[in-house]
């Protein structure tokens, strides 16, 4: 079946602009996760959803970052007033459940460059 998909694959934006990144999880997966991979920080967790709710937002680096999920499927990660340090690859993953013990599958990522 289809894997996790993300769009766009690449995004170049000017500092100060808002961007939206989209993730479409594997069908039937109730849990969805956002991670970020940047040169200096490695792979870091941002936020996860169980259904449409986000119990843990502790990984979001600032209040410029927000995410939502509607219909228990597609999720959007929004970065407002982008800064150069936001440049990174944003990865989305999904799993059957958000409880411990479920394998996560990753999408191809969105490479964000802030100029």
């Amino acid at each position, binding site marked *: 079946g289809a894997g996790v998909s993300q769009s766009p694959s690449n995004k170049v934006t000017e500092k100060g602009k808002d961007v939206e990144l989209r993730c479409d999880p594997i069908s039937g997966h109730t*849990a969805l*996760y956002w*991670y970020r*991979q940047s040169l200096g920080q*490695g*792979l*870091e*967790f941002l936020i*996860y959803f169980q259904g449409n709710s986000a119990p*843990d937002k502790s*990984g979001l680096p600032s209040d410029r970052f927000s995410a939502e999920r509607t219909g228990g499927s597609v999720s959007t990660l929004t970065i407002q007033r982008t800064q150069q340090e936001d440049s990174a*690859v944003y*990865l989305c*993953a999904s*799993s059957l*459940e*958000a*409880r*411990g*013990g*479920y*394998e*996560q*599958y*990753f999408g*191809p*990522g969105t*490479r964000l460059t802030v100029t």
Partner: protein
Amino acid sequence: GIQVEQSPPDLILQEGANSTLRCNFSDSVNNLQWFHQNPWGQLINLFYIPSGTKQNGRLSATTVATERYSLLYISSSQTTDSGVYFCAVPIKTGANNLFFGTGTRLTVIP
């Protein structure tokens, strides 16, 4: 919080050689995943292995949960095995969001 250490950080192999990658973690876990990040950045699932041993072709993995480590074995390496290998465990007990190690960068030369 949980700590994950991977070794070695870098590894260069001649094609056909075998290798062992190690992942140490600081707390008990009920989930451990090994991933291969290919040169295009895609994270490919290798193993979901909270305990025990699994094999998939030339790759196998063993996790000894009581001693808090996991090993990834690559036999008869090929140039397509090049990339970064990550292990990841849940950030905290009961959660499923993952904390990643810093990875092992493998380069297989022909």
